[in-house]
């Protein structure tokens, strides 16, 4: 993980600020930085989104391919995650530097998203036990400025919202063998219901308080952080502690409560934004990467 060096004096300054609910950049403890979302960025994916959070930037592409369902879950499709820590994001990722972080991130993403409570995996099934859609979710870190989990989860939700899976129907011939047929209308496609897809909120314990969306400096002052995935109803679907320090049960409880509150508040404007963008359709001026 990208890190910065913080001096003792700076640390004290940050700690004291947080104690008084006033962070270095002027935010309160439960405020996010400025966030930008754009979907349908990459034309050769089935769904894509780019999210910038402060200086953190991630690009998520979703590709749908036909695969075989898992033997234990014959009537469900599934998701595959891959996180590419590009050396563009930070020089530390050069070579194999980003590999460990990438695996850690994708493992967490499996836990958070690849279950039937987050997504209607049954809708991804084409024919029981034989064919299903496999969604390959590729995450590309473009720039690291802290709080990767939140940015990635938001980008994934946006990309899944944007995903258009071509409609197929199965026709069986007389011998009972199944043939997949594609509709020739490119507009004839299936959408994914992202209502229950959670967002991840990372809370960093700094001093006696905790902050949302920590910058790299704040992170350097933190001993441990808690990752909480929250649905739009405020249900916590997953929590995970990261970092070397310890957390006492009381603060875990407090942090969870805060996470629920923040997460719940995050969903509504996100969905509103995505729907608004979708409604613009072809008339939307794409911003792209060059802005």
């Amino acid at each position, binding site marked *: 993980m990208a890190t910065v060096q913080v001096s003792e004096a700076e640390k004290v300054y940050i700690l004291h600020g947080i104690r008084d609910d006033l962070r270095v950049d002027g935010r309160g403890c439960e405020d996010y930085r400025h966030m930008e979302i754009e979907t349908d960025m990459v*034309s050769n994916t089935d769904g894509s989104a780019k999210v910038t959070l402060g200086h953190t930037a991630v690009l998520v592409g979703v590709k749908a391919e036909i695969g075989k369902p898992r033997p234990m879950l014959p009537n469900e499709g599934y998701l595959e995650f891959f996180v590419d820590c590009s050396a563009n994001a930070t020089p530390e990722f050069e070579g194999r530097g980003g590999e460990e972080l990438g695996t850690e991130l994708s493992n967490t993403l499996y836990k958070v998203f690849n279950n039937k409570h987050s997504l209607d995996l049954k809708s991804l099934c084409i024919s029981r036990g034989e064919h299903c859609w496999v969604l390959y979710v590729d995450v590309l870190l473009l720039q690291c400025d802290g709080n990767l989990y939140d940015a990635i989860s938001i980008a994934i939700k946006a990309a899944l919202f944007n995903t258009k899976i071509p409609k197929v129907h199965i026709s069986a011939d007389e011998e009972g063998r199944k043939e997949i047929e*594609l509709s020739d*209308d490119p507009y004839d496609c299936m959408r994914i219901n992202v209502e229950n897809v959670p967002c991840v909120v990372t809370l960093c314990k700094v001093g006696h308080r905790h902050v949302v969306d920590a910058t790299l400096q704040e992170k350097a002052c933190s001993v441990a952080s808690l990752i909480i995935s929250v649905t739009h109803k405020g249900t916590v679907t997953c929590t995970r502690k990261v970092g070397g320090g310890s957390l006492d049960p009381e603060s875990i409880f407090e942090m969870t409560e805060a996470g629920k509150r923040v997460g719940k508040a995050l969903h509504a404007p996100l969905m509103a934004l995505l729907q608004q963008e979708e409604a613009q359709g072809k008339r939307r001026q794409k911003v792209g990467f060059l802005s």
Partner: protein
Amino acid sequence: MLKSKTFVKKTRSGGVMKIVREHYLRDDIWCGSEACTECKHESTVLQKDACIESNLCSYPHYLVPDTNVVLHQIDILEDPVIRNVIILQTVLQEVRHRSAPIYKRLKDIIHEKEKHVYTFTNEHHKETFIEREPGESANDRNDRAIRVAAKWYSQHLKASEAEADGLKVVLLTNDQGNKQKAEESGLLVYKCEEYIKSLIANPELVDRLALSNDEKNEITSSKVLFPEHLPLSRIQAGIKSGTFLQGTLRASRDNYLEATVFVQREQDDGTEVLIQGLQNLNRAVHQDVVAVQLLPRNQWVAPSSVVLQDEGPAKDDGVEDEDEENVLKTSAAESARKLTGKVVGIIKRNWRPFCGMLNVSHIKESTRHLFTPADRRIPRIRIETRQASSLVGQRIMVAIDGWPKDSRYPNGHFVRSLGGAGEKDTEQEVLLLEHDVPHQAFSQAVLSFLPKMPWSITPEDMVKREDLRSLTVCSVDPPGCTDIDDALHCRELENGNLEVGVHIADVSHFIRSGNALDKEAANRGTTVYLCGKRIDMVPELLSSNLCSLRSNVDRLAFSCIWEMNHKAEILKTRFTKSVINSKASLTYAEAQMRIDDTNNNDDITVSLRGLNKLAKILKRQRIAKGALTLSSLEVRFHMDSETHDPIDLQTKELMETNSMVEEFMLLANISVAQKIHDEFPECALLRKHPAPPPSNYDILLKAAKSKDVEIHTDSAKALADSLDVAKVDGFPYFNTLLRILATRCMMQAVYFCSGMDSDFHHYGLASPIYTHFTSPIRRYADIIVHRLLAVAIGADSTYADLTDKHKQSALCNNLNYRHKMSQYAQRASVAFHTQLFFKSRGVLNEEGFVLFVRKNAIIVLIPKFGLEGTVFFDSKDKAAPNIAFDEEGPTLKVEHHTFHIFDKVKVTISLDDSNIQHQKIRMALTEPVIAGVSVAIPDAEPQAKKPKLDR
């Protein structure tokens, strides 16, 4: 400006892929009109005064046809009257997608300068490109693109135009919906018919329009004649599950409604499935690999013994099919019924260009004609040509394009003309093409591997070879033979035994494995001998010079030398590469004369006598073992030395010396076969002759029984013995006839690779093992055997393909095929020359014997000419006589006379050239006299006329 085109596609592995293509839009695509002042084009295609006399459009205009108009009315568009047409890129792409031939024609139109046709790349034009909207089908989108482009044109021309006469754009479409939408958007739009009819000055166009319209109706309304073929995936599944069988279709020569499919199955040797009737044949053509479904047992039929030819000249698209097929429907005995099936799909078409002739349509000006292939097993082909009148009487080649399910005949197109029918060169070309005989001149690459002339034996060669030049070697061959590949010698050794040598031309010395020369020879497989022409397997330098064991020159040879005692028992066998110098090249007759001339005692003659003596013993031994002496009549033509026309015809005579040479060749082949099989048990190239299945002998047994002669077919020996004693008093020719029949019962001998088979037996020669070693100049198999033997005796090095049994097996298949085809070509050549011969003879009256009895005909053999012909008893133009066919005999009762096999009859022979394509020898019965069937004996005795006197 960049746009991207996105579409999803199914991949071959069954996945779905999203494909994104970049699509560039430009603003520098010009309209191509002469009248336009705005566009910065360098040259224009469309004329300024695009006038055509029309009562609908009195103004100058450009035409914009939509896709369907192009597809269906291409004939109209091709007409020189129609000019100033804008072909949109959308239309061009759609046409290309839908029909390749029409696309080609359209491209031709576009390239024609006089037509002023402009292609407008509307898909890349910034203002005419449109994207597909949600809910819009691909066709609708294209229609819209066409309308948008037409609209753009009309506005563009209006804006750029100063003149008052107003150039306009007229959209042509036959689609009602499209027309309506175009009218709504203010375009000038007409139906194609409307527009063409409005062209007052050119009424002839309407005819063509109507014609093509009829065509369309015909296609949609005419009944579907054939069932649909199944898709390949279904066929494969069916073959796997066993519901369908796969095999090669072989159409019957005699009956165009019948074919058999030879099915090779793993469990057994293979079965034959009978296919009868057009419906069941389902557009399969001879040699196609097809999938067959067996019919239920109660629908099985017996092969009809009717000879049926597809004759109705004007008959088209199956109106009379029911009548045709009724001929077949005869109740056959339960036992005679065979496995019957129907074709459900074609796995692989084996279409090649076919030779044949055109039957010109009776309707004048019609461009569609029927083409009759020379090969009777190929159905007639409908072709479209405008040069029918010039092709009449010519042999042409036609390729099949396809066979739609609503058409009685396949559709094809003219490839090239071979020349006038009946001309000798043309006919020879035809029969070579029809039998797939490679007969082009040898390529430069092949010739480059020939030894450089002057060639001589080098000292290095001498070191490696045994010098046998001192031996009294001579060759015995038919007269006029230039490719002498064998020579013999015989001498007495000091110990009293005899040394016999067979020396074979060492072709493998000159043809090294793997080079172009070798590949060409392997492909040709065999030299083909036609009457008066030889198609060489290897270039002439080798076949007639360097390899040919001519007299009094040093030649390289591969020798097989035995030490024998006077009882012709082999004491020692050895093989060696050698150098020989033949002392004499004799003909069979010359050799015979030397042997018979008791005064002649020179070395050559003594050697010949020794050989002859041994050969007689060998033959006796061989026959005692059960070798068959079979008979088939071979004819020889005496050719006019200048015109190369046959002037006389005689059956080949066999002399003692023929059999002398043959005996030693057989002996050499057997010795070599043993040697290479010992050395290479897995990859020896051998030749086998399978024993025929007992059912093959049915006809022979029945025929012999009718003359109270008993034939035993339990073994080759039994057959040989019973044939020897089969005699009928007062019928000297009976034995020969019987042997001819027996020959017809035999199986084809084939080359095979010893590692791929377990049965090596040669039935006809009664030898447990056999191969071909003695004619490497004219057979490729012998070259391989030479190479194997050379490796076995350490005289040459081996190479990978030689010991690869799969490659060798593949080679055997080719050799067997070429061998079979060359035999057919030879027969066809003889048949053609027989026809030429009879052409100059008029009508002859000859004696013959009934060889086979068919349901409606007898097949008669004329021993004098070795000629076989069919006497039909039913003909189309007169009432058929009373015919009763008895399968048991088999006998055929015509009115009151009953024909048996071997009956002596008299027939008139004449050349029937009423059908120039299939000139045939026509035979008509003169004796026995049957009222209404037989014909009168021609008055003059034409045999007396010598052709020389005719001139």
